C-alpha cells in the first residue's frame, strides 16, 4: 500500500426525489488498499458503488480518480478512468467461452471487423496465470465453471478492462467456504499488484479476513471507519446493530 490517493470523494450526496440515499460522503482511498464498506440494508453502500461505477449520477459532490475530476457518469467513462466493477451477479455471459467473456466489449480486432482469436486467447491465458486462477480449458463456457472460477473470470475481465480500482459487490455471496477462501486469496494478491479494491459486503467476518480498512455506513452516511487490526468483529456488529440492540 502506498501514500498515493487514488480515489477522493468530497461531499457526495444522492437523492431520489425527497429520499436521501447517501449524504455528504467524504473519504480518501490509497493505492493498493483493500477497503470494505459494511452496513445494513438501505445504508447506502450500493448507491455509493453505483455512483462509482457510473450507473448513477450524484446529486452533488465531487469524485477524483487518480487526481482527475469525474465529469461524465456512465460505465464506459468510469472504466476509462480506471474504475471497474464486478457485480454480485458477475455480469458474465454463461453461453460464451472464457476468452469471449474476458474481452466482452473490448475485443481485439483486425481489419476493423474480424476477431483476433489467437491473440485474445494468449492474453487471457497470461492474465489468468498472473492472477493464479486455475481453469482447465479456456474453451469452456462460463456457465460450466464453479462459483470461484466464475468470480475469477469476472475479476480477470475487470483487470483486463484496465481497472486499477476494483469494486467488488458481495464477492462471495452464495459461495461455499472453500470457494470464498479462493476468492479472498485472489483479492489479497490484487493488492500486491497495487490494485485498489473496494468491497461491499454483508459478511463482516469474511471482510475481516481480507480488508485493511472498514467503513461502516448507516442511513446514507459513513458513521465510522476503522483499520481492521484496530477493531474486532463485535465492535463493528455493535455499531451496525446499535439502535436495534438498544430496543
Amino acid at each position, binding site marked *: 500500500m502506498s501514500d498515493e490517493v487514488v480515489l477522493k470523494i468530497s461531499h457526495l450526496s444522492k437523492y431520489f426525489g425527497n429520499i436521501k440515499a447517501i449524504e455528504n460522503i467524504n473519504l480518501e482511498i490509497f493505492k493498493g488498499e483493500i477497503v470494505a464498506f459494511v452496513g445494513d440494508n438501505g445504508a447506502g453502500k450500493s448507491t455509493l458503488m453505483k455512483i462509482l461505477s457510473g450507473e448513477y449520477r450524484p446529486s452533488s459532490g465531487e469524485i477524483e480518480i487518480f487526481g482527475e475530476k469525474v465529469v461524465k457518469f*456512465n460505465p464506459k467513462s468510469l472504466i476509462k478512468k480506471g474504475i471497474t466493477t464486478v457485480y454480485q451477479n458477475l*455480469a458474465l*455471459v454463461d*453461453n*460464451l467461452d472464457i476468452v469471449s467473456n474476458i474481452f*466482452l*466489449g473490448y475485443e481485439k480486432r483486425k481489419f476493423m471487423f474480424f476477431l483476433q482469436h489467437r491473440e485474445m486467447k494468449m492474453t487471457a491465458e497470461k492474465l489468468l496465470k498472473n492472477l493464479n486462477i486455475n481453469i*482447465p*480449458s479456456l*474453451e469452456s463456457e462460463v456457465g460450466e465453471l464453479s462459483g470461484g472460477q466464475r468470480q475469477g473470470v469476472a475479476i480477470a475481465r475487470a483487470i483486463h478492462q484496465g481497472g486499477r480500482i476494483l469494486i467488488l459487490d458481495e464477492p462471495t455471496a452464495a459461495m461455499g467456504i472453500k470457494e470464498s477462501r479462493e476468492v479472498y486469496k485472489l483479492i489479497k494478491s490484487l493488492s500486491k499488484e497495487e490494485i485498489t479494491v473496494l468491497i461491499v459486503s454483508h459478511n463482516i467476518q469474511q471482510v475481516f479476513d481480507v480488508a485493511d480498512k472498514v467503513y461502516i455506513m448507516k442511513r446514507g452516511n459513513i458513521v465510522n471507519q476503522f483499520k481492521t487490526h484496530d477493531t474486532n468483529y463485535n465492535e463493528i456488529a455493535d455499531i451496525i446493530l446499535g439502535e436495534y440492540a438498544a430496543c
Partner: protein
Amino acid sequence: MKCDLQIKAVNNHFKKKYLPQIILFVLLIISLVVISFTSPYFLKWYNIKNILDQSAINILLGVSMTLVICSGGLDLSVGSIAALSSVVMALAIHSGFSLEISIFICILVGTICGLINGYIISCININPFIVTISTLWIYRALTLVLTNSSPIYGFPNEFSVIGSGSFMGLPISFIITLGVVIFGTVLFHKTKYGKYMIAFGCAEASLKRVGVSVNLYKISVYVFSGILAAVTGIILTSKLNCADPLAGYMLEMEVISIVILGGTSIKGGRASIVGTLIAGLLMGMLRNGLIMNGIASYYQQLLVGLILIFAVILSERDKLCKGS
C-alpha cells in the same frame, strides 16, 4: 488430473457446440438414402436442383431468423415484409424506374420495415412477439391496399434470371442463399457481432455494463432480417413473374421451424447457421420425397410438426436429464 479435466472440458464443449448439427447431418444422409430407394427420380440432377431451389428461400430467411432468435427476439413479420417490398418494387418498375433502382427501392423498404420493428423492440422496449405480430398485419394490409389485393404482372425478361436462372448448374436463388449463409457464418463466428447476439440472448444486462450500445445492435439484427425479407421478395417475384400481395403467407412459421430444428434455442443465447442450412435442406428434401411418393400434403405438415417436436425434445435433453 488437470489434463483429464481439460479433455473433459473440450469434450463437453464439442458436444454442446456440434452434436446437434452432426445428428441433423446424419438424419439428412439417412433420409437421402431411404427416399432414393423409394423413388427412382429422386436423385436425378433436375430434382436435386428443384430441392435446392425450393429450400433457398427458407434457408435465406433462416440466416437472419437464426440471429434474431439467438438474440432473444423473434420476427414474425418477414413474410409480410417480403410481400410489401416486392409489391413496392413492382409498382416502381411499372412507374418507369429502372430494374436496378426498383431493386434498390425494394431493399430500402425491407430496411425501413426492419428499422421500425427494431426501434419499437429496443428503444420503446416492447416484446418482439407483440411488435412483429402487429407489423405482420400492418405490412400485409399495406400490401393489399397498394395492390387493391390483385397481383402485379409484367416484368423485364432479365428479371426472371434471379428466380429461375442457373449458374454452373446451380439455381441462382440457391447461390444467393449460399452467399448469405457464408456471410452470416462469418458474421456470427468471426466478428464481435455474433458474440453480442449470444450475449443478448442470455445476459443482456452484461453488455450494458461493459458499455456496449445495446439498442444499436438490437435494431441492426431486425434491419438485417428486413433486408433478407426484401431479397426473398425479389426472388419470389422473379420466380413467379408476379408480385403477389399474398406472397410469403405463413413463411415465418416454416422459417422458425427450420431454425429451431437446426439447433438454435428458442430462448436465445445459442445458435447455429450451419444447422439452419442443414435443417432447411432436410425439410426441402423430405417435402420433395413425400411428393415423389404421392403422399398427400397434410401428411407433410404432420411430418414437419413431428420432426420439430423431436428436435426440441432432443435440444432440451440435458435439462430433462438434470431434472430427473
